[in-house]
């Protein structure tokens, strides 16, 4: 009985290269009928295991059969003045195979380079360095970073199967007021994760997050990261005048 490890093949081109190597075929002169037959044989096995993977393999099967039929058709003769450009129907496939093979090979080289590199360790960072960097190596976190941090936190919340349904205990308005207070008193900056961890339920976290977005929009607070994918830090925005009227207007809508 056949036993096929699907992970071995990275796709239809990989399978073709495998067959070419197995049969010791010259890639520039592929016996298309034979290779098509073999390819379909493997495809049958793959289909037994995984239908979704087979989709891409089927496209290649169709391509192979098309090439096969074109090879069988007689070449045009006498019809044109010069029989120019009588191209081999297999040519395009061969070029694709060669291109793919190039990248497959170089990816193995890259893997070796990476392996070597992982054996050269670099410094892991020190407390004093963190202090140095705080002042200048900060850049503004994007909305994408915020959402990424938020979804990380959401993932971390244990899922309770049974939960009491609480009626709108937390409002965005309330959270805006809380946040405003938090950034204005003493604490210069708040780490987003810590802030969110203080919330009791998913609902509260969502309210908090919306409040945060709102305050950013109103330019009352700013968010920063020390490095890409680092902790998101929430800070009061300085030197910005915000009309209190505007806030009334906006928060009233929530």
């Amino acid at each position: 009985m056949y036993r096929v490890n699907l992970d071995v093949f990275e796709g239809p081109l990989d399978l073709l290269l495998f067959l070419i190597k197995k049969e010791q075929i010259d890639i520039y002169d592929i016996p298309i009928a034979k290779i098509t037959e073999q390819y379909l044989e493997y495809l049958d096995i793959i289909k037994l295991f995984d239908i979704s993977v087979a989709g891409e393999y089927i496209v290649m099967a169709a391509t192979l059969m098309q090439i096969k039929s074109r090879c069988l058709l007689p070449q045009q003769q006498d019809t044109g003045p010069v029989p120019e450009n009588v191209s081999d129907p297999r040519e395009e496939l061969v070029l694709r195979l060669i291109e793919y093979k190039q990248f497959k090979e170089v990816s193995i080289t890259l893997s070796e380079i990476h392996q070597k590199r992982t054996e050269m360790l670099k410094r892991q960072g020190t407390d004093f360095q963190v202090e140095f960097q705080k002042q200048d190596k900060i850049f503004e976190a994007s909305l994408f970073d915020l959402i990424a941090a938020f979804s990380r936190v959401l993932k971390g919340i244990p899922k309770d199967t049974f939960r009491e349904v609480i009626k709108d205990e937390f409002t965005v308005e309330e959270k805006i007021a809380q946040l405003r207070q938090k950034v204005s008193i003493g604490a210069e900056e708040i780490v987003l994760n810590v802030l969110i961890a203080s919330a009791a339920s998913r609902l509260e976290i969502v309210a908090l997050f919306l409040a945060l977005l709102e305050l950013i929009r109103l330019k009352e607070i700013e968010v920063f990261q020390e490095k890409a994918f680092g902790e998101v830090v929430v800070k009061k925005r300085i030197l910005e005048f915000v009309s209190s009227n505007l806030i009334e207007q906006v928060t009233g809508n929530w």
Partner: protein
Amino acid sequence: MNNKEIKRILEAMFFISTEPITVQQLKDVFIDADAGMIKEAIVTFQNELVEKNSALRIEEVAGGFQMTTSSDVFPYLRNFFGQKPKQKFSSASLETLAIIAYRQPVTKAEVEFIRGVNVDGVTTTLLERDIIKVVGHKEVPGRPILYGTTKTFLEVFGINDLSMLPQLKQFTKQDIEISENKL
């Protein structure tokens, strides 16, 4: 400031820094030294470490210089610090990454054409790991996203700049017949 003094201060900087240090950054520190002098001091320090068979090395990576441990002491470090969770790349992501690295800026469809398979999952993972990034849109119908590699890619693979990527092999007939495919 002479070469010796610069070298001495560099030693402290490399010791502390977790990121590659560029000559440009150093020019702001050593105001009276030019790029040539700084580069020379780095190379002197680099050679010194090699000559005295130090377990530390200065590696040129991602456009800068960085202190790393020599790979021959890695087994001992691993035993001492424990096995780090390895950042491994699957062969699917390596193939995809290779195509992006050599063909950038490149669209997902172009990568898929070369690999012959869908690369949605792999590109997402590579994006999350900050190995590749969106570099723009191709000005064709649909304006598909163009991808390129990041500075992290250079660091992770210890490559100084993209021109230092290993050469793509030009295949001849024989190569393909005798190649040892890792299947």
